[in-house]
């Protein structure tokens, strides 16, 4: 019963909102270039299906590459930080600086340095910088959260640093890491969109570029269709990472266990 409600209630709200929207646009004769009706957006979506899918693929490809790069970079830096206090003292301030600097501000620089002939690489780099900090923060906290007694036990039995990392620190860090990766997945998409905005039309081919271009041409229905695709992409990324989290933690971690 509760399950049905979980699905039915949001769907009802969506139906009511879309119906109200559709009705209001027609009732008040809102021009299409200000606010298109849902039916108009659906028509624009169908009419531009192939090119919109191409754009979605381009944005998703940048997002995915950035997400993987951010995850690897975050985990490797976190391992470095927890294995060496010197490394952490030296580089942590720079990691924070990279995080607190609004990355939009350095995006033009990165585009110039990487060059517009490799615009996709530039987009991935920008999105990676946007996404990597939560992974670093989560993994660092997780690697440091290992049970002291368990670490003592490992030492007692002559475990090497590598064995301690692999058998105790990394599994302990997994819930923290996955939580950071969930945030990073959303940020990678945001980073990809921002990077496309900065790169501007003519170079990028993703959904953000479609939004800018449709806006310039006053094709607001197409703009909304691209926006809807971005929203779906964001939700899908989040759902996929939540599923991964559940699969990895369901046997042992409190956060993933369903209580009756």
């Amino acid at each position, binding site marked *: 019963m509760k399950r049905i409600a979980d699905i039915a209630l949001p769907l009802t709200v969506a139906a009511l909102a879309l119906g109200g929207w559709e009705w209001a646009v027609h009732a008040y004769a809102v021009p299409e270039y200000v606010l298109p009706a849902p039916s108009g957006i659906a028509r624009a979506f169908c009419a531009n299906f192939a090119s919109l899918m191409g754009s979605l693929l381009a944005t998703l490809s940048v997002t995915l590459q950035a997400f993987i790069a951010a995850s690897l970079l975050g985990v490797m830096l976190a391992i470095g930080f927890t294995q060496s206090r010197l490394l952490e003292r030296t580089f942590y301030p720079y990691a924070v600086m990279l995080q607190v600097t609004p990355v939009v501000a350095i995006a033009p620089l990165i585009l110039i340095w990487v060059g517009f002939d490799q615009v996709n690489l530039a987009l991935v780099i920008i999105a990676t910088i946007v996404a990597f900090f939560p992974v670093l923060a989560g993994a660092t906290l997780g690697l440091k959260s290992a*049970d002291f*007694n*368990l670490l*003592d*036990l*490992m*030492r*007692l*039995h*002559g*475990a090497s640093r590598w*064995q301690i990392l692999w*058998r*105790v620190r990394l*599994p302990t860090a*997994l819930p923290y890491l996955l939580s950071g990766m969930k945030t990073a997945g959303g940020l990678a998409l945001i980073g990809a969109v921002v990077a496309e905005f900065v790169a501007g039309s003519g170079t990028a081919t993703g959904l953000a570029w479609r939004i800018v271009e449709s806006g310039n041409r006053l094709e607001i229905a197409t703009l909304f269709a691209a926006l809807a695709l971005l929203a779906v992409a964001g939700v899908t990324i989040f759902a996929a990472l939540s599923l991964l989290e559940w699969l990895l933690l369901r*046997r*042992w*971690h*409190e956060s993933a*266990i369903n209580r009756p």
Partner: protein
Amino acid sequence: MTLLALSDVGKRFTGGTRFADGTEALRGLSFSIAPGEFVALVGPSGCGKSTALRLAAGLLTPDAGTVAWPDGRPETGFVFQDATLMPWADARTNARLPLDLKGVPRRQADARAAEALARAGLDGFGHAFPRELSGGMKMRVSLARALVSQPRLLLLDEPFAALDEITRQALGDDLKRLWQIHNLTVLFVTHSAAESAWLAGRVLVMTPRPGRIAADIPLPPGRDTRLAPATIEAQRAISAALGEAMAAA
């Protein structure tokens, strides 16, 4: 014959404590243990019992005095107050840990872990995860893990303190049985006079911090049950020694 000897050991902890000059946990602590003994280390909370145990395991080094293992560092099992299991691994993988770290082949390690679990009273629970086990069962996994590498020396740090009375008694009985069949040397930290009177062959009573040995009490035979007159008499002697150690401080 001596397996383990601490002589005139001092240990002070600096940093991370509330005291500017650090906390002096131990001062002038001396005792030795012969192979096959079951020794209880009894004292008030905060008297440095756990520190002494970590020194005996070689996990800490003393600031003063020496910790010596005349026959070389023995293979050692350690049981903490909490079960200290890996929550992401099942009971068998947890019990297998010391063997995995030594590189014992998986098949052999699995067999030995299963055997250790069975000895600790957990036959058939090898695939259960720690969160699926009760507090007492988790402690049994911890005990199996400590015994799986066939240690000569078993160190226990108030292992049953967090358990209910019935489970504590059952585990105490099992520990005594395991000590006998494995021909172990046991150093058992506790604050319970009753527990040490029943389990140990010799009781070391510690003073409040900084801890040292206030009394070394060999217990007489004839303590066949928890409530045998000899057991009760031993408990009375330990309690009296504890009281004296507290009063003298």
